[in-house]
């Protein structure tokens, strides 16, 4: 165990190994408060490469890895302990289907008392019978093999999370519900340290969407066209587990934050208590971005898009929009900035699409660039074609440089572009379009590119809005205040945790 930290940040599948919006956010959060020390718990699976993509900031004291599919073997059970194994596996099944705070509390207590692990709960005869019973209940007539591996993974992940070596910290901060939330809840109950949960996107919604279109997941389709009665499917096993994890996280957390209002209705629907909910937006280094001078040199009208070349960014829509745009703005140029290594197959299909639509002379794929500011200063509009976002940093940063935005109606993009209730800055800083609608995007881009006055007016609105609401200093202050509030001694009467 390392020396104590002020905050233990619990990240799932991302920081410090994978580049992305949430990872960048976590990195920026730590750098913004150098007076606080951070310990990072990185949750991943054994097949994921653990090569750091981020250089840890000086105030990050250590990183602890939690590998979900590797759990302690525990002691070998005696024959007389079959009932105890059965009882714990019953609790595990509840935790994976309809768990709540008390389930996790009891599970932690039982695991502590018995010292059981994989040997007793998965590799024993009783463990096998429990799996069979769970199969009969949860996926009757489904593919047993798939259920077996799913069950094994989920149980192992719970055991791995409940054996996390907890660092000393004054606040645990989970960067999502899901696995991060369960590790945070475990820490909250065992170490009796306050837990803050921050959700960028709503975890259960995102998993539901991913599972709905997962081609690799077996689906019997016995439900046919009936959407009212949900038949037991493998995906429902996973979805129930994720929902259960969220419920546990919401119940145990002291404070739950998200970046924008629309997310809170989902959190409430998933069981988050109203009095724990708060909004803290993403913050950017406004001063740095606002100081970038606009490139006034004569050049082609330029559209820039910043994002990883992955399906969720719907690069395809952007490419087709640009192909349509070149008919409306003949000398237009489009720049795509973002890494292509996360989904090389998709990136290849995007390049193919550029050829299909005959836009090779218009669209440039730049990959990762060392200095994105150079491109922002010489662009006329930023486009975002994502089909799912929370509060995209790329939009905030471009807005701070005074670029108007054309974005799909996802996450908080409408709030950023059109303003929100109580927003001190009036006006629109761009145009919001329907997702997956290249024509609408092309027309919106053309509208802005054709009208110099409109472009500069929108750019100014964006700059002022971001400067007032999404300023890093303001956001840092909000987090620091929240940390301080949570670190304050809790009156004994309010203290919660296992007895």
């Amino acid at each position, binding site marked *: 165990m390392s020396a104590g930290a002020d905050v233990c940040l619990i990240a799932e*599948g*991302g920081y410090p190994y994978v*580049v*992305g*919006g*949430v990872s960048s956010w976590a990195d920026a959060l730590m750098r913004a408060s150098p007076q606080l020390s951070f310990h990072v718990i990185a949750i*991943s*699976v054994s097949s994921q490469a653990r090569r750091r993509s981020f250089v840890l900031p000086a105030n990050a004291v250590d990183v602890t890895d939690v590998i*979900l599919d590797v759990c302690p073997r525990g002691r070998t059970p005696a024959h007389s302990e079959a009932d105890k194994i059965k009882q714990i596996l019953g609790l595990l099944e509840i935790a994976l289907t309809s768990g709540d705070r008390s389930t996790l509390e009891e599970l932690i207590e039982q695991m502590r008392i018995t010292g059981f692990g994989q040997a007793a709960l998965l590799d024993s005869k009783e463990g096998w019978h429990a799996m069979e019973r769970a199969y009969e209940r949860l996926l009757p*007539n489904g*593919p047993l*093999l*798939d259920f077996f*591996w799913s069950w094994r*993974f989920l149980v192992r*992940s719970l055991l791995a999370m409940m054996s996390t070596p907890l660092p000393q910290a004054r606040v645990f901060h989970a960067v*999502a519900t899901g696995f991060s939330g369960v590790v945070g809840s475990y820490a909250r109950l065992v170490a009796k340290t306050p837990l803050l949960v921050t959700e*960028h*996107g*709503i*975890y259960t919604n*995102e*998993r539901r*969407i*991913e*599972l*709905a*279109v997962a081609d*690799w*997941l077996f*689906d019997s*389709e016995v*439900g*046919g*066209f*009936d*959407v009212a*009665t*949900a038949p037991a499917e493998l995906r429902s096993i*996973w979805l129930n587990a*994720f929902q259960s994890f969220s419920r546990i996280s919401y119940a145990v957390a002291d404070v739950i934050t998200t970046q924008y209002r*629309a997310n809170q209705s*989902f959190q409430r629907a998933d069981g988050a208590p109203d009095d724990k909910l708060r909004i803290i937006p993403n913050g950017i280094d406004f001063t740095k971005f606002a100081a970038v001078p606009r490139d006034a040199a004569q050049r082609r009208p330029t559209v820039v898009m910043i994002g*990883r070349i992955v*399906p*969720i960014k*719907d690069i*395809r829509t952007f490419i*087709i929009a640009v192909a349509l745009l070149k008919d409306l703005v003949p000398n237009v140029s489009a720049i795509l900035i973002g890494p292509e290594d*996360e989904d090389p197959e998709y990136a290849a*299909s995007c390049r*193919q699409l550029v050829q299909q639509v005959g836009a090779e002379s218009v669209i440039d794929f730049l990959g990762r660039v060392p200095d994105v500011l150079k491109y922002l200063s010489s662009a006329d509009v930023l486009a975002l074609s994502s*089909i*799912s976002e929370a509060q995209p940093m790329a939009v905030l940063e471009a807005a701070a440089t005074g670029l108007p935005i054309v974005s*799909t109606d*996802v*996450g908080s993009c409408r709030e950023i572009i059109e303003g929100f209730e109580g927003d001190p800055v009036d006006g629109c800083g761009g145009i919001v379009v*329907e*997702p*997956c609608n290249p024509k609408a995007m092309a027309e919106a881009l053309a509208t802005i590119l054709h009208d110099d006055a409109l472009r500069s007016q929108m750019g100014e609105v964006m700059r002022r809005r971001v400067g007032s609401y999404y300023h890093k200093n303001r956001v840092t202050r909000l987090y620091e205040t929240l940390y301080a509030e949570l670190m304050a001694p809790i009156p004994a009467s309010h203290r919660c945790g296992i007895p």
Partner: protein
Amino acid sequence: MPESSVGCPLVRSAIAPAAAAQSLAGRSDIVRIGRPGERPVGVMGWLLGFVIMLLGWQIALFLALFGGIIQFGVYAGTHILGCFVLAAYLVCRLNSTVASERYSAALQMVAWSAFAGPFGAFVAASLSFPLARTSSRILRDGHIESLTTDSSALERVERMHIALLDRHVRLEGASGIRPLMDVIAEGSRSEKLEALRVVYRRYEARLSTVLKRALRDPDTSVRVLAATVTAKLHTKYSRKIGDCQIGAAANPKLAQNWQTLAEARLAYAESGLLESPRARAQIEFAVRDLSHAAELDPANGTSASLLDRARRRLEAWRT
């Protein structure tokens, strides 16, 4: 969005060892029609004729014996020889044809009549024909079942089709299934999400209206899933076109490659996912590819008919 959250990658990694089983398990919902004992109408007619012939022959022989026209030895010889010849014929037919059901049933009748004369033939016929009565039932089970393509199976399917048309068969709980568009317009969030999953799994051009409606849904999560489904479907079609383009570029002298490319373009154009100008552009490209295929292989009738179809579609657009 936690773009790199462990979420689905771990689901994938967790069940990867079972992937090999999925190809089999994925076939489990194939509908099996009818029962093993059922016989189609064509078989029935042939069997009926056979039974009448067998019974007539056996009764005539029996009456001739009791009327004193023939002696028992002649009766027994004729009976045994006749049954043997019939059985030999049926066995030969049984081994040389795929529609073996009629011959095996007839063989059973001959065996019965060989042992018990006309009484045996009568018993065999009465045992066989009740099974041949039409009974329609859809069995939907979890067992792995493969579709057979023999003529008896096809006849069963045809019979089931007729029964459906005659409204003699209904799906249990069908009245509870609402059209997907209604669900998108009025359903709860979870119903809408489920409906979109169904749209993705069973996508056809007619469902594009459901997707477009869902893209304008007031609920963000419904819009996001609709957008995800739309993007995935677009990717499927455009990836197919891309693959075909690569194939055609690698071997441009092969007419089949250009035809496959044109087929992929036509499928995309007719998917309902593209707005009119882009669908038309795809058909124009398909016409170009098919013309190229026709130049390379003028004798290919499929290319010619596809080209004709594509040109007619373009013409319809112009007018």
